[in-house]
């Protein structure tokens, strides 16, 4: 009896907090379905008087939304792949395989996150532009356009974030040392220990990192804007910015576009969060 009350109360609190978390999303959804003359109103109306899908049509026709959607998907997926692989490799090395200079490197990694990207933007641009032997550049990085206007200009700088390395390192640190020791004494190569023993135990962390890097890549705006010139290479965030210009905002299509833009991340999340369920990943077996 008391248990039932407690559980009901638990769900009630979760629901109230959940509603609170959903409010702006619900407003976007409702705005995207309202005709223009209903959009500006006070107090905010949560339910559209008439439901229209015209804004969804507008979102897809005013800008090449589908094309930009695909571009963003490519960039975000590439970011996830590289960050999971390279981030866990480096994170594992920092956590479990200390080498000469690893402490300095790790401090550098942490420190790099503390410099606002606003001021590194211009130097970063110049590095991408003067990347040797790319885009007509010679060995000294002169003469051409480097990686500019290629997807590499977005993929390479984002291939391994300090965030990914730091996060994976922390998770490897939390795993017991002796897991690999036995295998090591047996002469098992380090990469196998990493790949077969430690990495599978990090599935929750990898799932989390996948969601984070996907969101980061998906939301990329300023950097892709600066290094990509071809409008056909634009990302979804640039499409969304298209509904706001000269101090006017076209709320209907903007919100319709935002809702569509949320879908991939939410799908990925709904899938990835299954790895965060007790019992699936780490049951404590083999630890005694």
């Amino acid at each position, binding site marked *: 009896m008391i248990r039932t009350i407690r559980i009901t109360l638990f769900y009630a609190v979760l629901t109230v907090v959940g509603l*609170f978390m959903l409010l702006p*999303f619900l407003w976007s959804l409702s705005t995207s379905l309202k005709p223009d003359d209903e959009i500006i109103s006070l107090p905010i109306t949560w339910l559209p008087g008439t439901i229209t899908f015209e804004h969804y049509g507008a979102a897809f026709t005013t800008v090449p939304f589908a094309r930009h959607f695909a571009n963003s998907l490519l960039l975000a997926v590439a970011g996830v792949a590289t960050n999971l692989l390279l981030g866990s490799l480096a994170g594992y090395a*920092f*956590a479990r395989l200390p080498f000469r200079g690893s402490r300095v490197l790790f401090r550098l990694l942490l420190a790099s996150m503390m410099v606002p990207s606003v001021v590194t933007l211009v*130097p970063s641009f110049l590095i991408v532009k003067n990347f040797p032997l790319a885009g007509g550049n010679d060995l000294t990085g002169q003469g051409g356009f480097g990686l500019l206007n290629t997807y590499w200009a977005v993929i390479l700088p984002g291939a391994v974030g300090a965030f990914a390395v730091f996060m994976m390192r922390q998770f490897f640190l939390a795993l017991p040392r002796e897991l690999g020791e036995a295998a090591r004494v047996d002469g098992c190569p380090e990469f196998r220990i990493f790949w077969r023993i430690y990495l599978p135990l990090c599935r929750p962390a990898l799932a*989390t990192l996948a969601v984070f890097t996907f969101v980061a890549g998906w939301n990329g705006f300023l950097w892709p804007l600066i290094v990509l010139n071809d409008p056909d290479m634009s990302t979804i965030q640039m499409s969304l910015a298209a509904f706001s210009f000269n101090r006017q905002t076209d709320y209907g299509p903007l919100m319709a576009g935002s809702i569509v833009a949320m879908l991939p991340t939410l799908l990925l999340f709904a899938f990835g969060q*299954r790895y965060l369920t007790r019992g699936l990943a780490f049951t404590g077996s083999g630890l005694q």
Partner: protein
Amino acid sequence: MTQTLAGRSAAGRASPGRARPGDSLLSRHQARAGALFAAPPMVLFLVFTVLPVIGALGLSFTSYDVLTPPTWAGLANYARLLKDATFALTLKNILLYCAMFVPAMIAVSLLLAVALNSRLPAMGVFRTVYYIPVVTSPVAAATVWTWMLNSHYGPVNEILGFLGIPGPAWVGDSSTAMLSIVLVTLWQGVGSNMLIYLAGLQNIPGHLYEAAALDGAGRWAAFAHITWPQLRTTTMFVTTLSLIGAFQLFDQAYVMTKGGPGNSTLTPVYQIYETGFNRLHMGYASAQAFTLFLVIVAVTVLNMRLNRSDET
């Protein structure tokens, strides 16, 4: 710093910092493997992250408007900083923000993670719902929240009024604007950290709880003696990142308040952006950025030291 940060592994074993390279054949072998593992990511990192940082550091000693080549300015930018009362104010604002935001972020995200780590049905739905703010369009979020917090028509003050509490003007008042931004950024960011904590919770061996249950430990005792200590490395990660992120607050302050009212929500990165890209003083903006960098380093190191002494 590495040692401090690493702390001890979950099993309470030696930290990696203590295993000196060259101790034995085995560790030398490990060191080689470590260098090999880290090499490809670190090359990318050095080229695309460290080099630009060094470039920006160099620019902080120049007069640079982006449009024309920089000219050497020595310490002039840093000298100008000493007289810049606005930048000092932004540092004060951001320290206040961090002091409110970071502890609240840790507490709320941990609480949600522990709650949603339960084996009851439908937890996945709630996790997804709590994560939605992270992916909600920032424009929508800012629009709805500034309205929610409106002094006269906002539902927040209506509810407060119902309870007999006179609501403040929130973003419209210089004394509560920063608090409003704390609330909105918490709302927006708590899903991410909840997720990290959830991942951390999966690494706690179940047998620890079983043993505690056999000893008759209650929920609270289990949290205090197992969950919290086992989440050490996770908490260190969440705290450090929240601090670093909080110090660089920009978007929400830009969208919700434009730094106002009365400069009360003007943040260092906001000012750096203005200086560099709108006023074309990129050299000075870089000097501001590295001053902020030093403040972040100081606070982060302090935080790491404090956390260590806390539990030794």
